[in-house]
């Protein structure tokens, strides 16, 4: 009887979630004539188009253009940095009005309503200058990084990719998706990836900023164009922005801004270009789409489960050792463990993952391999969770009454016997509720592996959501985490019940 009740409950939860989703997608209507501001969505780590300068201001070529467009229309410009993977969600929910950020048209013609292209850009490859890699074919068997949902990624694995590029991608050991270019360059420098494919403008800027350690291959991956993207069907706003841009082109303002950003060679705004309006999408039934998305996410499920299981296997015993060290009468050891616990609990797990992954290279000069990425995830999670478990163990041990220790001493148990036979079983009972909390948090924390670009469930869901321009994968991911935790909670409560034989 009890088990049957779960299914309707889950269904109800799913329906609830989709209602909420529906509410968010349908409220982006606005009356254009009353517009007072323009919310521009951009990736704040994409120089020179949009980024944070030394004074902490968001600046860039695209933002300068947007500023001018707003000024001419009497709008207030709102610069909204976004997570690149979530750009479609942002646009659909009306949280931003447009994506204006070196936004590649090529391959996305049908997904948005566009202005005419204003920058002609190519995708190029950046490698370490001393790597010996001089052409694309040298990358066979190597790990190549691209930004998640970027034009470079599309150039390799979208439907519109050239056969040549598809074959190249096949020859790579792995096409590694990274969340931003800063992480990409950290990976390249540490040896975790051999090359990064990216926009030429960004590549030039990054190489100049980072010095002669890096170089660009002559052979481009693809050539492409940038334009401003609007929600499909939002012609009114698009036309207004387009008009203003052409006005700026005519009076020379556009050329001046391009010159300020040293992009005079790349701009291509032309009033005779055809406007791209999005066209029609091919229809796919919801069930088919859901099935396809679930299949895509299945790979990530395994990765998340593996992180979860390995972290528990290593951190549960390690936590006990740390707890012993913390309670040791040998003061230096106790202080050391106290410091360790305090640092781990006092800093974000995401930062710890970055340190574990990049630390070996940037602190010790050891070159890291791509395989290390997974180990770094497990090591980072283990070190973090062991600290939390250590404190739980400590409180559980200290909650065992003094009388139990005395009774064991009088009966002649050795210290080890006393711990194993008397204290440990009582400690376990004391700590089960706290352990349950931590384990449930761990299930959700596995998604933090994205910080070092390890593709687990949630990272994959975000990537698929971006590629498919739908939020379904995120809800599938949500259901996955919920079901996973539901099982964890059930298992833990079964253990708790089992321990109810004593009080």
């Amino acid at each position, binding site marked *: 009887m009890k088990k049957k009740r779960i299914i309707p409950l889950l269904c109800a939860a799913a329906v609830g979630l989709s209602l909420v989703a529906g509410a968010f997608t349908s409220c982006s209507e606005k009356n254009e004539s009353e517009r007072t501001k323009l919310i521009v969505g951009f990736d704040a780590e994409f120089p020179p188009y949009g980024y944070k300068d030394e004074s902490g201001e968001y600046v860039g070529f695209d933002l300068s253009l947007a500023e001018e467009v707003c000024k001419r229309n009497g709008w207030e410009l709102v610069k909204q940095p976004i997570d690149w993977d979530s750009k479609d969600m942002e646009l659909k929910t009306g949280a931003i009005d447009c994506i204006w950020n070196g936004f590649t048209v090529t391959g996305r013609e049908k997904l948005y309503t566009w202005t005419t292209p204003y920058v002609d850009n190519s995708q190029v490859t950046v490698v370490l200058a001393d790597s010996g890699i001089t052409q694309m074919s040298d990358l066979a068997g190597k790990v190549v990084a691209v930004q998640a949902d970027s034009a470079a990624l599309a150039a390799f694995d979208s439907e519109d990719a050239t056969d040549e590029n598809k074959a190249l991608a096949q020859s790579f050991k792995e096409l590694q998706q990274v969340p931003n270019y800063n992480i990409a360059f950290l990976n390249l420098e540490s040896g975790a990836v051999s090359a990064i494919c990216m926009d030429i403008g960004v590549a030039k800027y990054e190489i100049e900023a980072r010095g002669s350690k890096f170089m660009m291959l002559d052979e481009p991956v693809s050539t492409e164009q940038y334009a401003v993207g609007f929600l499909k069907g939002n012609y009114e706003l698009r036309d207004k922005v387009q008009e203003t841009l052409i006005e700026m082109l005519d009076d020379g303002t556009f050329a001046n801004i391009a010159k300020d950003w040293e992009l005079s060679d790349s701009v291509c705004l032309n009033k005779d270009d055809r406007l791209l309006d999005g066209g029609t999408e091919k229809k796919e039934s919801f069930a088919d789409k859901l099935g396809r998305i679930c299949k895509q996410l299945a790979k990530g499920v395994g990765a998340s489960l593996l992180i979860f299981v390995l972290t528990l296997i290593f951190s549960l015993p390690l936590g006990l050792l740390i707890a012993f060290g913390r309670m040791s009468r040998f003061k230096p050891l106790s202080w050391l463990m106290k410091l360790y616990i305090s640092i781990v609990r006092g800093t974000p797990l995401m930062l710890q993952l970055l340190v574990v992954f990049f630390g070996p290279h940037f602190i010790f000069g050891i070159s890291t391999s791509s395989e290390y990425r997974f180990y770094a995830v497990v090591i980072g999670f283990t070190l973090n969770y062991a600290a939390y478990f250590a404190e739980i163990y400590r409180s559980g041990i200290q909650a065992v*009454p003094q*009388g*139990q220790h*005395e*009774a064991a*001493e*009088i*009966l*002649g*148990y*050795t210290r080890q*016997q006393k711990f194993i*036979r*008397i204290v440990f*079983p*009582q400690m376990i*009972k004391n700590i089960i509720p706290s352990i349950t909390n931590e384990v449930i948090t761990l299930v959700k924390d596995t998604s933090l592996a994205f910080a070092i670009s390890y593709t687990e469930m949630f990272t994959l869901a975000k990537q698929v959501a971006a590629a498919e321009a739908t939020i379904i994968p995120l809800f599938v991911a949500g259901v996955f985490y919920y079901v996973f935790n539901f099982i964890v909670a059930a298992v833990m409560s079964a253990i708790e019940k089992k321990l109810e*034989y*004593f*009080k």
Partner: protein
Amino acid sequence: MELLEITGLKKSFGELEVLKGIDLSVNEKEVVSILGPSGSGKSTFLRCISMLEHPDEGKMVYCGKEAAHSEGGKMIYAPKNELKEIKSSFGLVFQSFNLFPHYSVLKNLTDAPIHVQKRSKNEVKKEAMALLEKMGLSDKAEQYPYQLSGGQQQRVAIARALAMKPKMLFFDEPTSALDPELTAEILKVLRGLADEHMTMVIVTHEIGFAKSVSDKVVFMDGGVIVEQGAPADVIDNPKNERTRAFLKKMEEK
């Protein structure tokens, strides 16, 4: 033969001197009761001779073997293995029972004999069942401590101490946590042990019980032994003013 010989035992907690030099000897088959008001140091004394507390000064001899003596204000203990043997010569029953909650009644009795004394499982189990039978608890062997009443728990605790086959048993206010009717239950068990000539040192507030069961009564107050001797002397004809005051107070209760 003297099973326990304590001389000049002193113990302080910080500034507070709780034991100011206690001498006590206990002969084989002797039952010694220690009486005294709260804060007189009687429990601390029992914890010292059970080696749960470390005294500051004095000499402690068990069954003719020296466990510790003081030299220049420092305690010097016997080697570890000797100390282990000495510790196995006595058992202690606590005021709050301190049974192991995660073990069944039977396992509470058998775990230490099997894993500490390394005796044969079958033999230990058989003896444990006999002990439970004696305590009137044979039907509780498979139950857990929380399922028992306080009196039953204390009887299990006594059986657990006896299962180790100690030469003497120490009791730290064994009935103080119990209702009057359950107290009677435990006193009956203690009387039974006395009849079997078990050597016992009992810290208690039960004057009547002490009088009827003890060979020797010790009255402690303010960290010293004020008076000791046969119950007929100490309880019926106390010489010391403090003993008289205490006994009078207890009668009024």
